[in-house]
């Protein structure tokens, strides 16, 4: 893998200031976070509510600016206002609720929205919109009204809307939280497909099984990064995860219980398929 630093988060702090309180109160959400993300990586960011993971996501395309510290995207500082649109073109963002990020009343018009904003030629918009819709498998719905689509389909349209900008990185802030299991699977497949094509993915989630599919898992707690490793290594530390209010994936949980019962399984199983395979081997021997 190319280890060049693509996104660089350098000792960042961030606070929300509540002006309604008297005197105004300051809620520090990020307390010194440093993180490097390389081109083409698939990073999952885990953390329970209030751990600062969504705030971290919004730092990556200059929606939030750090209080102290700096964020660099492909060498551009997010504080640099002249580079604002270049940064947002490089790092696209998909949010939780698909309903609240679709602007237009026709699917293809919505996908075209970002391109219209950055002033792309109409013929080029047409080409990129078609390409983006095909990539997420929504091309045949291009003339539909978004409100008639299912949640998963709407979210795929939202992804296409970001994809049309041809970003190098897509940050997804809990994109599956409001979807049913089918919608979730559709989105995860789309994400993996995009990553395979070289798009850097930062997936903010609180679903362990989704994080397990990433190449790298970052665990946040109370505004700090407390774990940053391969999924296998992160999920084998079940105790530590539980101490910050997170769970391990169901399969890992099962594996640990089986190990306790004296069954010789490796402790770092995170996928169902792997678990089935190992168990099958053991049962075959008996």
């Amino acid at each position: 893998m190319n280890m060049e630093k693509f996104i660089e988060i350098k000792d960042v702090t961030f606070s929300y200031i509540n002006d309604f309180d008297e005197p105004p109160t300051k809620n520090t959400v990020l307390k010194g976070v440093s993180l490097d993300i390389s081109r083409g990586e698939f990073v999952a960011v885990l953390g329970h509510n209030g751990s600062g993971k969504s705030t971290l996501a919004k730092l990556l395309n200059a929606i939030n600016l750090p209080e102290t510290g700096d964020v660099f995207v492909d060498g551009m500082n997010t504080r640099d206002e002249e580079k604002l649109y270049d940064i947002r073109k490089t790092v696209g963002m998909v949010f939780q609720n698909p309903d609240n990020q679709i602007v237009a009343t026709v699917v293809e018009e919505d996908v075209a929205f970002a391109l219209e904003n950055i002033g792309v030629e109409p013929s080029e918009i047409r080409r990129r919109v078609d390409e983006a819709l095909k990539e997420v498998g929504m091309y045949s719905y291009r003339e539909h009204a978004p409100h008639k689509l299912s949640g998963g389909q709407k979210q795929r349209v939202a992804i296409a809307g970001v994809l049309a900008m041809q970003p190098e990185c897509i940050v997804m802030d809990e994109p599956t939280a409001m979807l049913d299991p089918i919608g979730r699977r559709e989105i995860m497949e789309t994400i993996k497909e995009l990553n395979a094509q070289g798009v850097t993915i930062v997936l903010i989630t609180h679903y362990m099984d989704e994080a397990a599919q990433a190449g790298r898992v970052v665990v946040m707690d109370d505004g700090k990064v407390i774990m940053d490793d391969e999924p296998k290594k992160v999920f084998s530390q079940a105790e530590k995860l539980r101490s910050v209010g997170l769970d391990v994936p169901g399969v890992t949980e099962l594996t640990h219980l089986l190990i306790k019962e004296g069954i010789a399984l490796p402790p770092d199983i995170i996928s169902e398929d792997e678990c089935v395979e190992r168990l099958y081997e053991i049962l075959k021997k008996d």
Partner: protein
Amino acid sequence: MIKDITIGQYFPGKSVVHRLDPRVKLGLTVLYIVMLFVASGFLGLGVGVIYLLLAFLLSGIPLKMMLKSVKPIVPIIIFTGILNLFFISSGEILFEWHFIKITTGGLRTMIFMASRIILLICGTALLTYTTSPITLTDAIERILSPLKIIHFPAHEIAMMMTIALRFIPTLIEETDKIMSAQKARGADLDTGNVFQRAKALVPILIPLFVSAFRRAEELALAMECRCYHGGDGRTRLKQLKTAPRDYIALAVTLLFLAAVIVLNIFVKI
């Protein structure tokens, strides 16, 4: 349920009328309205009727939709009709009883005005039948865009209309959900007098407003992430282009308008 409400009353189709440039179509509608107001006699209105029927036939919209569009304004027609009938006194007296007097002049004006209103509504309804709200918004933006020189926010207005159209179904769905949720908690929405019912709507409207504001905030964020920065330097996926059929339609309409003016001058009916 309320989910079935269609916004505008667009009938998708591929007829000549559907395919006219929406800007031209708006212009034609304005010309048609002018035609109706210029017409001073029934013959003039007759030209308007022919024009309307022609447009309806070309659009492939069933004629009964024309009648349907008139339905909501029947009370207005009756109201203005009664006013005209009783308050205009010219020509021969047909009927007199105490202070009520019906004259031929009043009768004529009543019929004339009612026909004019009906024609007006049918014509404008055809515009919304054959043009989707979003295309119409687009046309309005483009027609108003020269006014940007005097800082008229044409793009912003069009954007707001688009977003409103986009969120109407979403908010209707949400209202449905909130109503069910409140009913499940024992809210009584269907009984009582008008005031009690209006009061019962408060627990529905408040959550709806709160959620609308939340949605607005998230949408603004999502739009910013997609580099939205107002109308400057924006391009469009769909370009509006006028075709020969637009000019033909315009010529035909002007011809009809001319006919009405000529009738005004030479025929007094």
